[in-house]
């Protein structure tokens, strides 16, 4: 059922009327949700951006679903990055001390090694992800997209009414 929903989401997103840029922006924001620990304050902001900005909601869900396991896999790297930044870089201690004692910032859990490492990684990767996804959607629509729309699989998968849920947020 989950796979079916994912396929529906992928098809409906890739074939939506949204521009490749909107789909790619949604996927890049979704990658943020997947790569960083979900129950973090900054993800509330990312989720609000996904809803408010005119990006592909379906793309965001795909990005989230795809990058969640990637986040689990990269946790040791994030931990190491966060450790380096929080504990092994004395020149940054002043910045962390200021943020730690400021309102709201501590709620983001930035002083956790995994959260900070994944947040930094996601931020650095946001633009590369965006351009890569935009190129990918472009290529897909120019090559395999038209052919896939004629296949039975596409019609079967997209026939479900569940697809309509995604259309609420379709750009």
């Amino acid at each position, binding site marked *: 059922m989950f796979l079916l929903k994912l396929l529906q989401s992928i098809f409906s997103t890739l074939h939506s009327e949204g521009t490749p840029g909107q789909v790619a922006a949604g996927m890049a924001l979704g990658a943020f949700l997947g790569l960083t620990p979900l129950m973090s304050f900054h993800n509330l902001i990312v989720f609000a951006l996904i809803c408010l900005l005119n990006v592909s909601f379906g793309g965001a869900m795909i990005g989230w679903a795809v990058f969640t396991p990637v986040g689990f896999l990269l946790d040791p790297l994030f931990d190491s990055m966060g450790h380096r930044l929080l*504990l092994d870089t004395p020149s940054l*201690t002043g910045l962390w001390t200021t943020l730690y004692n400021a309102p709201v910032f501590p709620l983001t859990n930035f002083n956790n090694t995994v959260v900070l490492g994944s947040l930094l990684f996601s931020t650095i990767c946001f633009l590369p992800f965006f351009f890569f996804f935009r190129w990918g959607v472009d290529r897909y629509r120019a090559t395999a997209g038209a052919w896939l729309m004629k296949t039975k699989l596409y019609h079967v998968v997209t026939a479900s009414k569940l697809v309509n849920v995604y259309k609420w947020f379709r750009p």
Partner: protein
Amino acid sequence: MTAAAKSAPPARIAWVRWKAVLPIGVGLLVLVLAWLLFGNWMVKRVLEAAGTAAVGAKVDIDRVRVSLLQSRLTVYGLTVASPKEAFKNTLQADELDGDFETLPLFRKKLIVDRLAATGLRFGTPRTTDGRVKRPAADTAETAAPAAGKAAAPSQPSAATTAIEDLTDRLNIPGLDFSQGKIEVGALDPSKLSTAAAARALQTRADSSSRAWTAAINDLRTGPTIDSAMALANRLKGAKPTDLAALNDARRMLSLLSSAKDKVDALGRGIAAGASDLQHGVAGLDSAKAHDLATARGLVHLPALDPTQIGAALFGGAAAGKFETALHWVRLARRYTPPGLVPHAAPAPKRVRRAGVTVQFPREHDLPAFWLKDAAVSFTLDSTKNYDGRLRHLTTSQALTGQPTTFNAQAPAVQLGALLDHRHPTPLDTASGALASVRLPDLSLPAGVRLVPGMGSMSLRFALDGENLRAAWEVKSAHVTWAHDSAGASATGNIVWQVLSGVSTLDLTAQLSGTASSPSLTVHSNLDQALSDRIRSLLGDQVKGAEQKLTAEVDAYADPLIAPVKSRVTAVTGDAQQQLGASQGKIADAEKQLQQRLRSLTGGIKLP
């Protein structure tokens, strides 16, 4: 796509999806609703997870009630399992009711102005194992931080290490003489200290020998003595008017005096060095005595020294008390590090990797946690309620400027604790004295249980830096005895025969040294009685075992000690002999020269 569509300009894309505002608003409402419905449950789960991570044992809570409007948090049915004992709780509380400050919550800081804790009970039994196995990465402990650098977690946790190792480090003697036989194991030479001491002394003796020989050679007294003797011979034929010869004689006497001073000074140095080496020789005998004691401890020879009997009987129980105190003090130090250095601690467990959370305290700011004042109501033997006061429990005493204190005073109870982490060297003390209370049973190692009944007990514990000072005293005049369910062993039977008629207990256990090298002494009124009894029952075997051990240690140590002693004697003797010879020659030359001079001048003293 139609031609019209192709030619039409691209539609302008709006940046904001305004139609999503309503769903987001609904989502926020759902969040508020979820907080109202599940907020208490979420806070309960967070408190349980954070408590479990902090204590290293399961923390369970029946329910929690949070009122953000009233800034009030009430915890019902708190249970904290023991991190050391599987089926025991450290404490249980019926209710914790506190007032917290709301604004600091936006900075993730919990400041509790007032807390009332009621129905606290300690050491209650539980049905499941409450210990939590810490992941290796999470067994974090604050290491001594470098200046300006965050205190990184190190492994393994010192608290855990203390729990696991204190008993091992104390090397408590066994009381196992099952079937009346005494097992004498093999000596492990690597654990004996005589060899190292002998090698060290041998090296020192060789080094001293080389240094003394070089110093004696450096004196170069030979040419001076030869010149003096030659001058003495020349003076035989000299006339009293030969002023040059007289002057030469006076100069030579001066040179001889100077050489004598140097030789005397070297003699004093050699005497001091020889004395040092003799101390080393005495140290070899001490090392041998220590090795004998170590050998006895290693092979679990049931020593007949009453203090060792006391340690064998009550050492385990005493170590357990001290271990527990040390564990909680270590935990307090871990979460309340001195100073304002960034401090890392393991984050609560979650589905993804937990990582490490670092606190960055800032001067004149609030600590991450501060319980200002707590009124505590507790029971000790399920019959009476006692009241106590806990003040300034915090994660940073450098910020609050106050040490954490606890005290409770009642006619029969005096409890107090002070955790002072304001200075670089933390000082933690705790003491408790209970009079006329029902004392807990003590399981002795021989399968015998001591039921002390009503009596008095006191525990004092202090960790000053890494220096330990602790004492545990138990007194009872109504002692009874029982067999443990494990069944009686031969040792147990002996202990039972001796002790079952004893109705009083006067026990004192003292811990000293450091956490890494502790020392335990235990005395009780039962020691001598048991020692005498064991001696009469096992005297011959014990004597034989002791002789065997002594022979083994002699066989191991004497061949090491004897050559070193000889070497020391030879080195000091040679040096003193050479020096004595030089001194004799100088004195002889001086004497001859003075005689010639006197005969030349006719006994008249020259200016």
